[in-house]
């Protein structure tokens, strides 16, 4: 494959000739390049978080603990072979959707949203399960022939995406719902959905936008209006966007220096350890800093692309591709909202924003990617 050679840089110990023995790391199903890139990103994240949390080391420790747990989860997910995932796909999806329904009926209310299920330390968000369940389910269905999918199958897939996405939006958690919807659509796209179907769906979606408006919660409508014109309410709903643009802009090329950002340290920037941590990075480390951060993200994405391109069957390929795209969609939505090109929807910056739940799901998805990479049967190239 001509394109794939581009990614050989990340594959030095993978590309071999003939039947070779697996390395130690491959035998324990850990993909070293991906792990190293993820750890580099996590480390970068610690540096920014330390400053964003007003030099509170306890916060960084807590985040390190989250990441340690999440890496363990990743290790466990990496042990499970792609075939097992293929077998469990339907079950996981159905369980996830039922849990999502039950959250609407009996979930905990936090910050005006019903997202949580369970008690104490075992509270979790079913929508996080769906982040894995939808790619699994779609990959399972689409990898059955015919590929590219027939029209009927395409509609079925839209339904599979739509039900949990709408349920999540009802919680309300618009950010996750959008990530789910967009990711799901990308799986269809990867499976070779016809361009005609894509363009028709886009048109239908566009015409449904007004309908969506009426289905929105008041605060969601406000966010959209604010996105269109933040100065409409500079001290209210427009405050986030204005302050984050000020933080980024005042950073300039070299930034104000680590621990020197006034926007975050004097608390002008809201949610500076979570959703808006990217603005802290831009203020203190400048354009250079965000460029390096984006470069690290691109390195991870490149390895993901390599794994996708070298996956050995259609299920693995679709799954790897969709999980990678989900990673990109989250980070793009986060950066987009912080820079003011997308409306403010609560999507954290993967691996950098403080918080445990989404981190576990994220690293679990990387565990699946590692599983796909390391469970390959080695064949002569």
């Amino acid at each position, binding site marked *: 494959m001509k394109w794939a050679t581009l990614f050989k840089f990340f594959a030095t110990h993978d590309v071999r000739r003939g039947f070779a023995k697996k390395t130690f790391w491959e035998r324990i199903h850990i993909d070293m390049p991906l792990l190293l890139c993820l750890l580099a990103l996590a480390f970068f994240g610690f540096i920014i978080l330390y400053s964003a949390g007003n030099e509170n080391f306890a916060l960084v420790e807590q985040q390190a603990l989250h990441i340690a747990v999440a890496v363990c989860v990743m290790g466990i997910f990496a042990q499970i072979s792609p075939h097992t995932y293929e077998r469990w796909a339907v079950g996981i999806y159905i369980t996830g959707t039922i849990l999502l329904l039950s959250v609407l009926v009996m979930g905990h209310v936090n910050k005006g949203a019903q997202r949580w299920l369970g008690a104490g330390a075992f509270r979790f968000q079913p929508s996080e399960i769906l982040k894995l369940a939808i790619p699994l389910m779609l990959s399972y269905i689409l990898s059955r022939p015919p590929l590219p999918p027939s029209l009927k199958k395409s509609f079925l897939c839209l339904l599979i995406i739509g039900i949990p996405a709408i349920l999540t939006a009802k919680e309300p958690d618009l950010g996750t719902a959008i990530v789910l919807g967009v990711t799901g659509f990308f799986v269809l796209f990867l499976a*070779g959905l016809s361009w005609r179907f894509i363009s028709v769906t886009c048109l239908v979606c566009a015409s449904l936008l007004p309908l969506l408006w009426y289905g929105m919660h008041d605060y969601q409508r406000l966010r959209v209006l604010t996105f269109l014109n933040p100065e409409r309410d500079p001290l209210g709903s427009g405050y986030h966007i204005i302050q984050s643009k000020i933080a980024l*802009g005042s950073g300039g*090329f070299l930034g104000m220096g680590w621990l020197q950002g006034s926007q975050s340290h004097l*608390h002008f920037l809201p949610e500076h350890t979570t959703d808006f941590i990217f603005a802290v990075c831009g203020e203190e480390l400048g354009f250079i800093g965000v460029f390096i951060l984006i470069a690290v993200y691109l390195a991870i994405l490149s390895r993901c692309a390599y794994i996708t391109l070298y996956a050995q069957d259609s299920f693995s*390929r679709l799954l790897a591709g969709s999980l990678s795209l989900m990673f990109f969609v989250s980070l793009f939505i986060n950066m987009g909202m912080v820079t003011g090109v997308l409306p403010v929807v609560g999507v954290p910056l993967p691996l950098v924003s403080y918080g445990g739940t989404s981190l576990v799901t994220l690293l679990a998805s990387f565990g699946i990617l590692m599983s796909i990479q390391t469970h390959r049967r080695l064949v002569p190239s």
Partner: protein
Amino acid sequence: MSRFVFKNPHQEKRIINQRVIIAIGFILLLVLFLLTRLAYLQLFKHSYYTNLSKQNRIETVPITPVRGLIYDRNGLLLARNVPVFSLDITPSETVDVKQTVEALSALLPISDDQRKLFYKTLRQQRRFQSIPLILKLTDEQIAVFSVNRYQFPGVEVKARMLRDYPQGDELAHVIGYVGRINAADFAKLDEANYSSSDYIGKTGLEAYYENELHGQVGFKQIEIDASGNIVRTLKVTPPIPGKTLHLTIDEHLQEVAIQAFGKFHGAMVAIDPNNGDVLAMVSVPSFDPNLFVQGITQTDYDFLRNNPARPMYHRALNGLYPPGSTIKPFVGVGALGNEIVTPQERILDPGYFKLKNSTHVFHDWNHTGHGWVDMHRAIVVSCDTYFYWLSLKMGIKGIDQVLDAFGLGHATGIDLLNEPEGLIPSPAWKEKRWGQSWYPGDTLNTSIGQGYMQVSPLQLAVATATLSMHGQGYQPHLVQSDATLRYQADFTQMSAYDDIITAMQDVIRSPEGRGFRFGRNAPYSVAAKTGTAQVYSIKDDATASSLEALRDHGLFIAFAPVENPKIAVVVVAEHTGETAPVVARKVMDAYLLRKELSS
């Protein structure tokens, strides 16, 4: 659809990988877009956002300058600033002002007056300005409030400088007072310079010298966090305190004069004829200016305003009285100086004067007549008939010209606001004001200081000082400054001054002199003239019931020592003929004898 669809792994791989490549391209495009956006914000709009960031965190806080102090000529402190801790409420930061006040009253004693005053100020002021509810907190009250502070957003203990007048009512009219800046004041002043000031001079010298006393506001640049807490101070421009005023007033004279007035009302002005220094400027009754600083309560204000004695009225400056016979020396100087009469020319006074072609009789105050009267005797016995006769020779124009030269009927330009002009009547004025033509009788009345003529005690004092200096008059002033010559009453016969001054001396010395109440035993030479102002207005006033209110005002002008005048005094004592010379004597003794003792 067929159940037997064969998997074609190679074709599937081709389809998927093709899409993956497209997705990679798409991702790169979006990343490029993000980078462009970041470059726009961080590189292209960098300075714009840097500016906004600074605006976010840097705040400029004004520092109030300390108001200038006021001393009298002997270095006695007349106006000072006392630090107090007050309980302030900022309406814009308070949810419900009324509720806050009620809640506070459970904690601290708040009187009805304080409450009323607070709500009155609340109506006059802008919402973001803090208003004191309790002006002087005790240490204990501060402690009580501090413990409960968290319950009261928008309420704070504020340290401020309160203006204080230790001499109380003795100089209330001259120094005036400061009061809280109200909306009307704000329209007139430099807002930047007053951004943190609570008080502004409302009357007297406090108002006239407001710019000098206030000083220049200072600024402090502070860094604040999003909750408005101060993180650190970045830069300080210290305020320039207001200038100290050194007055020409001798507070001791003030005190002596007020005591000498006793129960009577009136005004006294003492001037140093050599330079125009106003040594004393008394108006009784007076009021306590400290009441206004703290914000006057309605009860106090009503009491002052409705008091028939009008304690707020500055009689020495704004009080206009007919000068009566005190005008005679000035008319006399003019007549002799301009050679209208000679000192030897005399008339026989039968006790009245009749105009040709008229049956109307103008009486002398002594209806039996003074016999043969020349200029000297006319001053000594204050003969009206002589001046009736003289006025016809001078004509109204001649009289007005002389009085004008002494500055009568004109504002003196003293450093106080709202000085009235007074009035020296003329045919043109009468025509304009009353639409009537001038009669010879009007001229007669003018020559003895009755009728339409109205002058203020200050004007009369300035004229007396000018007379004492043989026509050299200085600009009167309350704040020490260089002497500037303002009046120059020169005549062809300058010996006229000596003639008149000798006659004025005899007002005191001669057995038939009218100034006997001054006492003939003064250890210094003194020239003087008495006068009586007829109380027309009150006679016409139906509400004037007491007999005392119908009595004429007594006037007295004097200067001493004659050879080298050091003090010129004018006293107006309302509704009494006896008090004015006594007041003048006590003030002159206090000034001249104390000076001799110390030198």
